[in-house]
């Protein structure tokens, strides 16, 4: 489960592998081919994704399901509004300078 659309995938393999990803009902897309033991996925939109490894001989691993549910946009916008308010107040105090000097 990821709430920001990213995940670190790691595996153990004796040789090179091919890592593929597929959204529900979609075709598999290759993310990585090579001898590394991990891969960083990011920028995924909401949905359920199947991740699978293929070995050199074509043998496939069991699929790993990655669920992406981004955080609430309403809460994010509320926090952005609060942040903007606090920041503008700080900038106003500094840029306005000393009062009743």
């Amino acid at each position, binding site marked *: 489960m990821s709430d920001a659309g990213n995940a670190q995938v790691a595996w153990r393999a004796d040789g090179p592998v091919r890592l593929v990803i597929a959204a529900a009902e979609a075709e598999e897309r290759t993310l990585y081919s090579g001898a590394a033991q991990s891969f960083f996925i990011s*920028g995924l939109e909401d949905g359920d994704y199947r991740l699978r490894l293929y070995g050199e001989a074509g043998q496939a691993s069991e699929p790993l399901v990655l669920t992406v549910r981004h955080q609430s946009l309403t809460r994010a916008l509320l926090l952005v509004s609060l942040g903007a308010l606090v920041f503008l107040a*700080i900038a106003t105090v500094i840029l306005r300078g000393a009062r009743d000097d």
Partner: protein
Amino acid sequence: MTEAAALLSPTVGWILLALFSVLWIGLGFYWGKRNKSFEDHALAGRNIGLALGAATAAASWITSNTTMVAPQFALQLGVWGMLAYTTASIGLLLFAPMAGRIRALMPAGYTSGDFFRLRYGRTAWGIFLIFTLFYSLTWLVSMAMAGGILLNALSGISYVWGMTVILAVCILYTMRGGLAAVIGTDFIQCLIIIIGIVVVGVAVLANVSVEDIHANISVERPALLDILFPAAIMAIFNNLLFGLGEVFHNNVWWSRAFAFREGVGGKAFALSGLIWFPIPIAAGFIALASGALNVPVPASDMTGPLVVATVLGEVGALAIFIIVFCALASSIDSLLAATSDLLTEDVYRRLFRPAASPATLKTVAQYVTLALGVLTWAICLPRIGTLATVLFFAGPLVGAMIWPIITGLYWRNANTAGAVGGMLLGAGVGLVCYFAIGWYVATLIATAVSMAWVLVCARLSKTRFDWAKLGESS
């Protein structure tokens, strides 16, 4: 940092480390010859000009995080993540007018602790010292650990040796040369970092077009281009306020405000903010290009070095090693100098030896630098990975200090109850939110709570502070 194959051989790494170590220590000893008193050692004689001033502020703010975490932010949170990181430059830009005000109100000041003690009294001063020493030590530990880990990842030099050499070099030249050595080396380090980042950015652009990068991200990482990416937009103001809190309270920046020649502080900090602003954009852009360049990323925190090494080969690996070493040294030296000055002035002099001579204070500051460095080394030695993340707990602490500082500098009716309550309430609520909700709201909530308390106290306050009291800091 996840383990990956080193980009350079350990021999090349050791040669680079030796060359730059000799350079920094030699310059530190040379510049330290002129230091006779504590004022020379801690504040470089209060005579730093614009070029050195802007470069030291920019270089101190370009940490290993700027060059390594900015690409990570871009890869995790997309274009907004990259821009969220650049908001740290606003800390320097807004500190520009504050620096002029600080210099005018406290012409004989030494530390940010002097401000808290004279403006709000000993209780607020004590809370400030606890907060700032926690932040400074965790920042120092995270930098030293990052040094060991990065040198290991880039060249295969063992973690303990890499961390030890970086710390030892910074301790030696900071002890001997004080702030003058820190500022001088920062100037050179700033030039190296900027030239390095520009060369790397141009090289990446020569290998792939912006259209290709956009097309690749649209297909493979579409959420990174989403203007309403929730995690990314939440990070913007949290990061911005964390950066403001770090700059506004820490003695790294206050000591520079005191050290810059009269009239220089405002321009130097504004210029340093403008110099710093494009660095995380360039570093983040490199990460966004990784897909189009077909560079597989095994871990997000290795994005920058991997892309650079792929595009530029061994030259790129050399460049990233030098940039990282300079970025680390320019931050560790500043933090060592500023924190040792704070301990010397605010703890040793104020609490134990008010009559200590300038020469004694200079010697004490040198030993405090050494002790601080050794303590940092001992904490870093076991390589407990989670220690570096403790720095993020400091977000609510530094956020809660923003309002007491800015109102204390500009408003006569800002009072002790507001400052003490603002720091304690803001930090407390912020830390609760850190664990209950997440890191992305902690600093924001802490700053907002502190702001509300400080504003109410100032509104109800009948006291009117006499600015002349801040001039009594010598």
